[in-house]
């Protein structure tokens, strides 16, 4: 029992230490990828992905836009295609969360979260824009983290 109490007390103390570390918070308003993670606990794969994105290298190496009916329709209307690689998206609840958060935005004409490619696929309303930082912040609201964002031809699989 003493051990139990000790455990509970210790976990309570941790409550105070960890709140700010639970999910990434960002101040960088210009670019989403490099500063989005804390450098203490990320894995090598994640780091490589982020730094590659920031430096612009390998930007067209990731998955390209998944073309659902809605996405095709929005593309035909002239909206900008965006593909964002999402870390930690492993189940339908993850996809649901991203859908709920992004679908509320008036800039978004079509959305599809592809669990196979672990990518958030967006097509914006014609003439609308959405910064990488906004995409990152919205992903945080959904509980996830963006590793890389591709737009335009890079999102469609062409040259970046």
């Amino acid at each position, binding site marked *: 029992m003493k051990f139990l109490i000790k455990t509970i007390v210790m*976990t*309570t103390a941790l409550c105070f230490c*960890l709140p700010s570390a639970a999910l990434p918070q960002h101040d960088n308003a210009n670019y989403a990828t490099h500063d989005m993670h804390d450098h203490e606990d990320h894995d090598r794969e*994640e780091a490589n992905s982020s730094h590659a994105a920031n430096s612009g290298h390998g930007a067209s190496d990731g998955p390209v836009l998944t073309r659902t009916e809605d996405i095709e329709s929005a593309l035909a209307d002239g909206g900008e295609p965006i593909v964002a690689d999402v870390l930690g998206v*492993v189940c339908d609840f993850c996809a649901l*969360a991203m859908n709920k958060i992004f679908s509320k935005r008036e800039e978004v004409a079509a959305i599809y979260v592809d*669990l196979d490619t672990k990518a958030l696929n967006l097509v914006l309303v014609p003439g609308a824009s959405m910064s990488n930082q906004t995409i990152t912040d919205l992903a945080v609201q959904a509980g*996830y983290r963006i590793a890389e964002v591709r737009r335009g031809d890079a999102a469609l699989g062409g040259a970046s």
Partner: protein
Amino acid sequence: MTAVRTALLLTLGCLISMVTLARPVSYAGGWTVIEESDRQSSSALVHYTPSPTMSLGFKTEVNRDSDFALYSVHPTFLAKRWFGTDYQGNLYFHGGIGVASGINDNPQSDQMAIYGGVMADWETRSLFVGYRNRYLEAGHHANQFMQVFRAGFAPYEGDSGDLHTWMILEIDHRTSDPDSVTATPLVRFFKGPLLVEAGYNLTVNQPLFNFTYRF
């Protein structure tokens, strides 16, 4: 000793409700309904997630073994989420404070109840391990500790909107029960906002049924 323990648990409950603090935390603005029914109790929890690191809900739990019902405010805190390209890991603290009332002709008076515990999970699209525990102090109604370990796999990887199927083995340990350690194989079906689990406790021959709906 009891006084110290109660004080510590009270403090924990207050801290949890202040700061905080089980898939217990949804997206910001999301609502979740969770029903759980196992060998000892049945419960229903409705929670709202104001931020992606915490949810706050109301929980009703009927403990069939000890004939009491628990009505509590139930905060959950996401302490840490580990992200990877192919995995997600989570550490949560959960707790609650409320009232325990006798049911089924249980004549004992209402008691303040408080509980707290830890949940952790790690999953990919085809593998899952999870652990949760809870210590409950409900005066003369109950003084319980339980912990549950789960491991499972998905026989196939479904995409968004597909029916996802998981095969899971649950091992639970409840210090207040004569059969303190039991095993429950279960199957989980998951599609869109709905998750359903059905299993059967092989040790004490009791069914298990859980569902979660998120909106």
